[in-house]
């Protein structure tokens, strides 16, 4: 053999050995949730097959601001599950539940292989997946093809519509089409007829912008200016200058942190005095500190009721759930609760509620199919985002009534029902 082919042979061997390492390393270690290898089960009556549920969130990357609270909510639930030994099925059989928490980095091409892995290698019965609308959209074909339930935590309606092509996909975050009408309704109630529509340049922003356009048309309000900006932009004075030069009477925004506070800051700096109406993307306390308390003053936006849990009337079905969630979350994660943590919590709970209806002894395929059916018919579940009433035509289950308007006053969220407008 010549020297060249010797080297080729050697390298072929190196490749084989190296890729054999993949086999050794990869399937053997699913990312552990931090409390894995938890409770050693004591003698419990009838322990059934343990359930594995995936949880894919953007823990790092551009959307980590949202994904981290979601992950914290999942961790909190895992701790609770371990403490109580899992869930109990209708036949009294107890099943341990393990959440496989993975990072998507907010990118579709990272999320997809991870999703495939948990579906085929780990055999999850369902998965929460998708912090952002973009990643959720990328994962939809994967879960549809594999016929496994996916519950997204993102906003875009396109994730669950058209329902005929989304048999296995659900989501827990309010859609922009639930929140945009509130933004427009507020503008209308204040007598504005011309507004500007600013949105972040991604799937979430596009979805929000089109929801605003629809709502504006329905209410007879004219959109005189539309502008976009990137999620990571540091300078929006150009767009704001255009706004100043236009005759818009109010600014409607679809954006999340960090773009949202930067926009707000620079908006005030430009001396613009028209009202600033954000959307539910700013539903986290850091928005106020980052934009600056004086700059955030007077900002109005629609939100899930988490914001004002204590100010809700006592009869509200969500009040107790929310207060409990806030307490538990702050104890477990050590930081303030946000609606995004709530979306993660709601998503896992939806799956757990479905699992509770499954008898023991089903094959994985049967579990997946029956779980889907159970979730699709879930009614009256009071979560943090609202009261969920799912159906074969509606894979979100929320309505605009689950959303309230909030005003930022003195650095705090103030419940802002229509009476106060």
């Amino acid at each position, binding site marked *: 053999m010549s020297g060249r082919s010797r080297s080729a042979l050697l390298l072929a061997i190196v490749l084989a050995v190296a890729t054999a390492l993949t086999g050794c390393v990869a399937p053997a270690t699913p990312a552990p949730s931090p409390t894995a290898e938890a409770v050693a089960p004591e003698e419990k009556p009838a322990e059934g097959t343990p359930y594995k549920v995936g949880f894919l969130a953007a823990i790092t990357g551009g959307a980590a601001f949202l994904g981290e609270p979601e992950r914290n909510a999942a961790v909190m639930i895992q701790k609770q599950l371990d403490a109580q030994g899992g869930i109990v099925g209708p036949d009294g059989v107890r099943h341990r539940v393990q959440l496989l928490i993975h990072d998507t980095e907010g990118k579709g091409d990272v999320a997809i292989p991870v999703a495939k892995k948990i579906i085929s290698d780990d055999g999850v019965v369902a998965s929460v997946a998708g912090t952002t609308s973009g990643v959720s959209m990328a994962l939809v074909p994967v879960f549809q093809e594999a016929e496994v339930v996916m519950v997204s935590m993102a906003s875009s309606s396109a994730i669950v519509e058209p329902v005929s092509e989304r048999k296995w996909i659900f989501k827990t975050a309010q859609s922009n089409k639930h929140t945009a009408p509130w933004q427009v309704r507020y503008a209308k109630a204040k007598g504005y007829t011309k507004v500007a529509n600013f949105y972040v340049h991604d799937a979430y922003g596009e979805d929000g912008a089109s929801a605003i356009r629809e709502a504006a048309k329905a209410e007879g309000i004219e959109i005189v200016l539309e502008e976009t900006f990137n999620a990571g932009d540091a300078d929006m*004075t150009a767009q704001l200058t255009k706004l100043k030069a236009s005759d818009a009477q109010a600014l409607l925004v679809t954006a999340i942190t960090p773009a949202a506070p930067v926009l707000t800051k620079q908006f005030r700096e430009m*001396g613009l005095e028209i009202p600033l109406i954000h959307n539910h993307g700013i539903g986290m306390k850091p928005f106020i500190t980052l934009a600056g308390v004086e700059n955030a003053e007077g900002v109005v936006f629609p939100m899930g009721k988490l914001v004002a849990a204590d100010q809700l009337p006592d009869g509200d079905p969500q009040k107790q759930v929310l207060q409990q969630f806030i307490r538990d979350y702050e104890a477990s994660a050590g930081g303030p609760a946000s609606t995004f943590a709530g979306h993660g919590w709601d998503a896992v709970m939806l799956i757990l509620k479905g699992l509770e209806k499954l008898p023991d002894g089903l094959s994985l395929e049967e579990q997946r199919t029956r779980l889907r059916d159970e979730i699709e018919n879930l009614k009256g579940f009071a979560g943090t985002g609202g009261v969920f009433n799912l159906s074969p035509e509606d894979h979100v289950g929320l309505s605009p009534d689950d959303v309230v308007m909030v005003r930022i006053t003195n650095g705090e969220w103030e419940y802002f029902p229509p009476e106060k407008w």
Partner: protein
Amino acid sequence: MPDYDFSDYLQFLISGASTGSIYVLIALGLVFIYNVTGVINLAQGEFAMLGAMLGVVFYKANLPLGVSALLAVICVVGIGALIQRLTIHPARRAPEVSVIMITIGTAIAVRGLALLVWGTTPHSLPDFSPGSPVRLWGAVLGRQRLWIVGTAAVVLLILYLFFEFTLLGKAVRACAIDRQAAELVGVDTQGMALLAYGIGAGMSAIAGIVIAPLTLVSYNMGLSLGLKGFVVSIMGGMVSAPAAVVGGLLLGILESLASGLLSSGIKDAVAFVVLFAVLLGRTMNLGEHLRFRGRS
């Protein structure tokens, strides 16, 4: 397109100039480092991020703003020197591509470290001099923007004085003009490389701190700043400081105008189209004739 009047155009100009000043500061650091060491430091943006982050850290530890800023800059100068010693110095004989990759790798590692230490939450610094914005013929100039332009001007002045009137400055210039000749007259070129990196990093840090109150500080703010600063430095052929100053301001203004007159989405593309145009427009000879003289 909305009906613009004079004050709107002025607004575009002013916002663009203040953003451009940031680019100038970062580009000057790049030019400086390149002139002395021959390295294109693609991690320059990360120094800006570190400066801003450390500024936040010190400020949150209840140190006064000015002291925090100063300490942050000093720390970053040290970090810059450290990075030069650890990553550039061992590779001084490696091919160009390798060195570029090394600076990229350093940038990635620093970014990851920042993510680990400070997390994903953006931070902010307060305005240096709080108060209402200044109004100039209908255009609004936030006070922080004045700080940005002012700081850039002061840094330029200090650099000019340094290179023109101090012995150390002259030694650095000698290195930049001809390294071998400098060595022959007794200049310690290794030490100069270290110094250059430290100072270049420091300039970036100043840029990061002064822009922090305006935009937010997050672990990945360095990427885009570094790239833009890099585009500007290329305008001067990597060797000319005055060209970098003019180029930086021009780029900032162009971005602002493009965003206002065309569409906001292509703002980022402007920098790279300009880069392309500049690269094609110049020839190597021109670059070599406009050597860095330290004059601003």
